[in-house]
């Protein structure tokens, strides 16, 4: 691996270049590519930003600006299991903050952080649109509705 271009794993770098190649001629392609990279690597490391910037021929500062603007793009890896607790209005008035507190207490991390073993990360999310089931928490693609703080440990146990 050349020391200049990346600390990325060569396989990933190859895939990254493929992704860029597919979309680079579309107008406004930076966002489209960043979405795919976030999914591929799980976050958008500096090395990847540099490669994207070079290939799209736009300054890396601009790429960095886009990555840090949107909450779905992250500069750090997120946990294997992404826990989301909806703090949208409907969930909030039904006590989702207490569900979040309970998760934070059990995992000993705060919202926005990842556990040391890389297993869980917690996010206080915006409305996930399942207001009929408020309060709602999600673990990756699984949705748990009508939550109560007492149910948290049982749910987390499923992901160990």
């Amino acid at each position: 691996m050349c020391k200049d271009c990346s600390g990325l794993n060569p396989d990933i770098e190859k895939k990254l270049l493929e992704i860029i190649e597919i979309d680079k001629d579309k107008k406004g392609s930076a966002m489209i590519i960043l979405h795919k990279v976030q999914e591929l690597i799980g976050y958008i490391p500096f090395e990847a930003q540099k490669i994207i910037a070079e290939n799209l021929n736009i300054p890396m500062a601009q790429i960095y600006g886009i990555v840090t603007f949107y909450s779905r793009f992250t500069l750090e890896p997120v946990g294997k299991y992404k826990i989301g607790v909806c703090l949208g209005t409907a969930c909030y008035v039904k006590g989702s903050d207490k569900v979040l507190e309970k998760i934070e207490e059990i995992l000993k991390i705060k919202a926005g952080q990842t556990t040391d073993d890389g297993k869980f990360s917690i996010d206080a999310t915006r409305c996930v649109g399942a207001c009929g089931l408020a309060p709602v928490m999600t673990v990756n693609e699984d949705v748990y509705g009508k939550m109560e703080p007492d149910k948290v440990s049982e749910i987390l146990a499923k992901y160990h």
Partner: protein
Amino acid sequence: MKSVQDLYDLYEKAKSKFQNRKRHILVCGGTGCTSSNSQKIIEKFEEEFKQNNISDVEIVKTGCFGLCALGPIVIVYPEGSFYSMVKTNDVSQIVQEHIIDGKPVLNLLYKETVLEDGNVKPFSEVNFYKKQHRTALRNCGVIAAENIEEYIAREGYQALAKALTSMKCEEVIDTVKKSGLRGRGGGGFPTGLKWEFTYKSQSDKKFVACNADEGDPGAFMDRSVLEGDPHSVIEAMAIAGYAIGADMGYVYVRAEYPIAVKRLQIAIDQAKKYGLLGENIFGTGFNFDLEIRLGAGAFVCGEETALINSIEGNRGEPRPRPPFPAVKGIFGQPTVLNNVETYANIPQIILNGADWFNSIGTEKSAGTKVFALGGKINNVGLVEVPMGTTLREVIYEIGGGIPNGKKFKAAQTGGPSGGCIPAHLIDTPIDFDSLGAIGSMMGSGGLIVMDEDNCMVNIAKFFLEFTVDESCGKCPPCRIGTKRMLEILNRITDGRGKPGDIEKLEELAKNIKASALCGLGQTAPNPVLSTIKYFRDEYESHINEKRCPAGTCKKLVNVNISNEKCKGCGLCKTVCPASAIDGEKRSTHVIDRDKCIKCGACIEKCPFKAIAFK
């Protein structure tokens, strides 16, 4: 499809195919019901059908039925029997008794549909649906969202055919103008005028864009339309393209809506395959193509200039207007930008005419509005009512009232940009102007109901936390001003409020409204202003008496055990994490306030409801 005749031929064919279905079942595949496992229910039905050799009953996966709190929902036709909260274990009973023997399973039906004489009424007769008027949602929960032929069987793409073959661009714009349709995203700007401005802008390249970046907390109208009836939006965007002279469109959808994105993509691909998007549509020489662009979690991108920046692949920051998108939009070209629900109305307007649409609703707010009912209300879900319906009708007749016999306190419309409507104004008709007049706004359609247990200062704080978090940071009034307001609110709810704080909030609010760059900043103070307007006494109690009347603000309340209700069971004592509760078995327990951390664990545990925040 090469001509309009091809469309009508397919329409006749598809219509008779779907009408001649002897029996079919609908299973909701919206986000709410999918979260409550409706996919497993579909699989279970398929499995049961296979085992029982049933091959002539179609299982249709639809979009949202609206009554999300009762999901998963299954409807069995031709009777229209309404099964709510269906579990996978219930499926075999429904198949055996209803599908095979023809007898509805009474104990699994939504209880309102089972009459005293044992007869069953169809789901359309349920109170929740009876008062509704479905235009934008006409196909949601009715057709299979992933099957274009079902849409075509419901007169789909006939509005596009009509516009392309028998109307001039000006006539299309004129029809939309005369219909009185106003933007459903919140602003309420007349849609026809927007189209006309874009039409008149000179350029050889123009764009049509759809705002599906539904970011207001508690709002899920647009998502439901995209999930349940994506073709109506595609058809409308093509009509808009024809009207203004554009051949390219973008739908900007939140990445948080994976089901909507997937169905929209399927729908676009199908439309292309059928020749309803692409080149030379219906042989008229009109070309139109559509692409999806994903948002990435920034509330401000719901603002039109920010959304355009984001479609262009940049940071989603707003810019000053003018120039408006109608003059300078996507990639600097004239762009017409409407919200999902606005588009969903268009095909009906073109087909049925401006007068038909104008006859629904009120004089200045024509048509219907979709609301996402949430919060402290029995029938949480999606409703569509004619403009001018009162809040009382929506909350009590359609929404089924407030749970647990609690009292209605206020409703919040317009999310973080709107305001609250207090109980004494519950008979206000819901339309753009009436809501504006009482200091709230229509907004995109989130309608959050609050009861006596909700503290209005806390609610205002909640919305402001949201805006502070989502402020893009470009202009100081929003970036700094909302932050200062939040600090004051935090102080008030923590019991450190000072006399003069309310006035300070009002002054800051006034300045932010006058000077913020975009609509989101300008409306950010609204929740605070409207709660001060209608619930000033609550602010005063927090500041002057250090008391939270609703018992929500933790630092201002104490946990109290009622002498009369406590039976001395000791459960609270065992659950208390701070060992703050003491008492002998079978005698009233007491809480040591110095130790109590107000976590509320004892309140949740007490079987006699003897403990409460006071």
